[in-house]
Structure formats: C-alpha cells, structure tokens
C-alpha cells in the first residue's frame, strides 16, 4: 500500500500550472504560464522587476482569481479554491513584504502557524497554552531556527533579517509538501543572504520549493532548475548553467544588473 502511494506521489507533480493567464484591465500580468514541480524539486523563477513573479504566486496561492488556465495540486484542479483550502493540500508560502503578526510574540506567531491546519483551531473553551504537543512543536521549530531565546519578543521588535527568517519558519510550521518562497532574501545584507541560502539548503530534501529571488547567488545555490519570467511569460527554463550562459537571459535580466 505504502509503496504504491510512493510511486504515485513521484509520478504526480506537486504543483502544476497549465496555461495560466491573469489580466488586470488591459495589463496582462501573467501570460500562458506552464510549470510542473515534482516532489523534492528545487525550482526558481527569476525575472526583472514587474515581470509578474509575485502575481504568479498570488495566483498559485489563490489570493487573486485567475483569468484563465488551471492550477493543480497533486493532479487536483484547485483553480477555484480559496487560499486556506490550498494550504490544507500541503502548500505554504512566504511573502516578499514581511507578513507576520507584528503585535504578537514570536512564539504566538509560530503557534498560529502550527494550528492553521488543525481542527482544534476552533476550540474556544480551553486555553491554547494547554496544548502541550503544539507547544513542543513550536519550541522545536524555534530551536531549529535559533529563535528560542527570543520567543517572547514581539515580532515588531525583531530585526528585518530575523523577520525574514521567521517568515520561513511560519511557512514550514504546517509541514508543507511545497513551499513557495517570495524573495526570502529581500532587503538582506550579503552576509545575511548567504546565511539564508545555507538555511534553505538544509531543509528537508523531500520538500519541493519554488523560489522567486533577485539574489542570483541564492538562486544558483538552491535551485536546480530556473525559469525566466519576462512580461508575465516564461522565456526560458533550464539548469543554472544554461540560464547563466543564455544570451537571451543576459540581455533582459543579467545584463541590466
């Protein structure tokens, strides 16, 4: 039984986009994007500012409705699903602009993230602090990320770099099968972003990652496959070496650096 499901798992892409399009009025932000991400894949999407990278993430996670095309999770059409339903299928994401709970403590942030997919999130007659297993898991996650000493600080008092890391901790708290990272290194110093790359490479190899990033070093370190997005269209897909040496890519992206 388990072996059958394993083979099925690896045959069905975790995430698949079919002919995805999105228009905002006359602006075509996403044009006919096709993408397949298998379990454990590490893919990246690069592209200049305004290429439609974050829009693509918002379509995948259900924040925007799509104009046409399909989003599939494990072969299931989730195009019309709401964000929280997609999360329940094993999807998690982080945000380019930090989206944490600024007035809550680091610990509460993580507790909320763990509770997100549990039925007990509706319980209102019992203290949250009585869920020992949830707390244990939160402490474990915080320890891994090196946050345990700052668990009682309000998140708004953390540095930008710490908040970026916490973004990813929240993403991991729901034990996702696929993690969408929207510029995890945005606004980080070069030292901090090198640390971020190390952190990402340490993640469970079975976890599929789709990464949007401006920082080329992180992309080349983490991703085994890179797609180049330009004016909402995927121009080219290939290994880091292929992308790095592609004249077309250099012209539109790397050349303008």
């Amino acid at each position, binding site marked *: 039984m388990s072996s059958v499901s394993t083979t099925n798992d690896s045959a069905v892409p975790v995430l698949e986009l079919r002919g995805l399009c999105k228009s905002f009025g006359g602006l075509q932000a996403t044009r006919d994007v096709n993408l397949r991400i298998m379990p454990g894949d590490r893919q990246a999407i690069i592209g200049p500012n305004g290429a439609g990278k974050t829009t693509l993430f918002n379509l995948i996670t259900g924040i925007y409705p799509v104009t046409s095309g399909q989003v599939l999770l494990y072969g299931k059409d989730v195009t019309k699903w709401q964000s*929280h339903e997609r999360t329940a299928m094993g999807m998690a994401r982080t945000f380019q602009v930090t989206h944490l709970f600024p007035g*809550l403590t680091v610990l509460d942030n993580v507790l909320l993230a763990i*509770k997100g997919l549990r039925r007990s999130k509706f319980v*209102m007659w019992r203290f949250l602090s009585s869920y020992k297993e949830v707390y244990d898991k939160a402490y474990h996650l915080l320890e891994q990320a090196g946050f345990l000493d700052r668990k009682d600080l309000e998140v708004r008092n953390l540095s930008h770099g710490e908040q970026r890391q916490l973004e990813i901790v929240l993403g991991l708290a729901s034990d996702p099968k696929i993690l969408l990272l929207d510029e995890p290194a945005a606004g980080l110093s070069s030292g901090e972003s090198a640390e971020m790359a190390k952190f990402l490479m340490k993640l469970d190899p079975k976890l599929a990652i789709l990464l949007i990033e401006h920082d080329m070093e992180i992309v080349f370190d983490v991703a085994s496959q890179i797609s180049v997005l330009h004016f909402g269209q995927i121009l080219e897909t290939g290994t880091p070496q292929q992308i790095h040496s592609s004249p077309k890519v250099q012209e539109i992206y790397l050349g303008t650096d």
Partner: protein
Amino acid sequence: MMSQKIKIMIVIAALVAVALVVPQSGSFVVLLVTRALAFAILAMSVDLLLGYTGMSSMGQAAYFGVGAYLTAVLATKFHIGMGWDFWLVVVMGILIGAALAALFGLFAIRAGGVYFLMITLALGQCVWGLAYRWNSLTGGDNGINMTGRPSFGLDLSNDVTFFYLVFAFFSLSMLALYVLVRSPFGKSLAGIRERELRMQILGYNTWLHKYIAFIIAGGFGGLAGVLWAHTNGHVSPETVVLTTSVDALLMVVLGGAGTLVGAAIGAAIVFGLREFLSTLVPWWQYALGAVYVMTILYLPMGLMGIPKRWRQRNQGKGGETKTLASKPS
C-alpha cells in the same frame, strides 16, 4: 512585567470589592452600578470584535436592543419571564442576539475596515427604525413599560438582589470571554487582527472565524439587553439608538481595547461621569466628548495602556538596546 496571575488576582479582588461595597451604598448607587454592569457586558462584546478581532462594529446596539425588546414584549404581552421562565428568556435573549448577528454578519463581514463599520451602522439603524415604527409590537416612540421584575424564590424587585444577579452574569461573561480570547480560537482572532492575509495562507478560513466571533458578540449583546430591560423596567427606541453603539465602542477605546477589563472600566467611568456631570452642568455631553478625544489623542491604548506606556517611558532607550543586544551576530 506583571505576571498573568497577579493581573487575575487584581481583577478578582476588584470584583469582590464591588460585590461587598456596592450593596452598602444606597439604592441610587446600586442601580447605577447594576446598569453599568449590564452595559459592560455589551462593551466587552464590542471589545471581542474591536480589540481582539480588529473589527470596529458600530451596530452592537442592535443585538442589545433585540434582547431588551424580546424581554419586554414577552413580559408585557405574554407574561413570560416573570418567574422561573426568566432563565428561559435569558437563553432566548442570547439566541436572538446571536441569530440576528448571524444574519447581519452575512452582509457585514464581506467588508473590512471602515466599510464594515458603515454596514454595521446601517444594519443597526434598521433595527432602530423597526423599534421606532413597529407600533403594535414595540410601542413606537413611547416604548414598553414593564411591570416589575421576575420573582422565583429570589425576588429580583429588590434592587440589591438584582444587582447580585447582574453582577454574576457580568462575572461569568468576563470569565467566558477571558477563556475564549486565550483559546486557540481567540488567538486566531488576534492573528486576523494582525494580518488577515497571512492567516488565510496558514490555512485559516478567516471569514468563518470572524463570522463566529461576530455571532458570539451578538449573543453577549442579547444577554446584556435582557438584563438592561429588567434593570430599567423600560425599553424604548432609545435603547437601540446609534448612541448606544457608539457609547459601547467608546467605552472600549477609553478603557483600552483588547483587554476585556478595559471595557468594564470604560463602562464604569462613562456611567459614573454621566450621572455625576449631568447633575452639575447642562453641557456634560461636551465633557464626555472631551474625555473621548483626549483618550484617542493621548492614550491610544486606553486607560489599561497606562502602565505599559509608563514602563516604556521609564526604560526609554534601555529597552531598545536590550532588543538589539539579543540579536545574533
């Protein structure tokens, strides 16, 4: 920082003090405190929405009003709720408040921020309009005069006995809401207040959480209304008027949103000031208005926020250095 245990002890001590002192203080004070306690339940329900969920409802008088009118209509037209069936009316009041909130929530929770405020305001005014116009049921502008309070072994027409009853309801409501805001569900509301989009991405159906919170607040509003009707012995459109909603909202802001206790303190101060000032000067409403404006300008966290503000001022830069020092190198 004060530990949670000490804070709870202070609240319990304050409650015990109220229960001991008020009955000794003459019928005027007893009635005034009873009214403040009944209204404080409404204010705490507003705090659940404003302070914990981040939804500023301007229509909470609607649920308060249906609870009050239900009590008055049942008592005067059907003679229900004057004996043991008082408890039945309490349950019905909670249910009708919750049911109305369930209906209104379908419209209001689609919107956020100021739009939510406007929709709740409009829906609240609908209930006021009904109370004002539906003469045969509500007595129109004159309202309904009730004949005495229920009696079932306990004679509630005795003001002190009735005070104890309302006090018990108030304490239980505060306890229930305290457990609720510290429960997983309550924390999810705080998450929605802080960053709703992130909550959706974490797997929460935020609409449903807000809807449930709205219904619960409506239920507490209904309960407050039942008690209010019996406190005053009179229900009129005045009970459901916009001012009631605004008062509840401002009490929460004055006491400190997101604290529950603040809502109760706000209610006590507003009722106290109103009684005190209205006997002194004809322009007492301006004084109350000034209190509100000063609070919003200088104490955005309300009276309950004073200790924190004071601490921050005392620590000043000290607190900041500590935060920076704890960063990893």
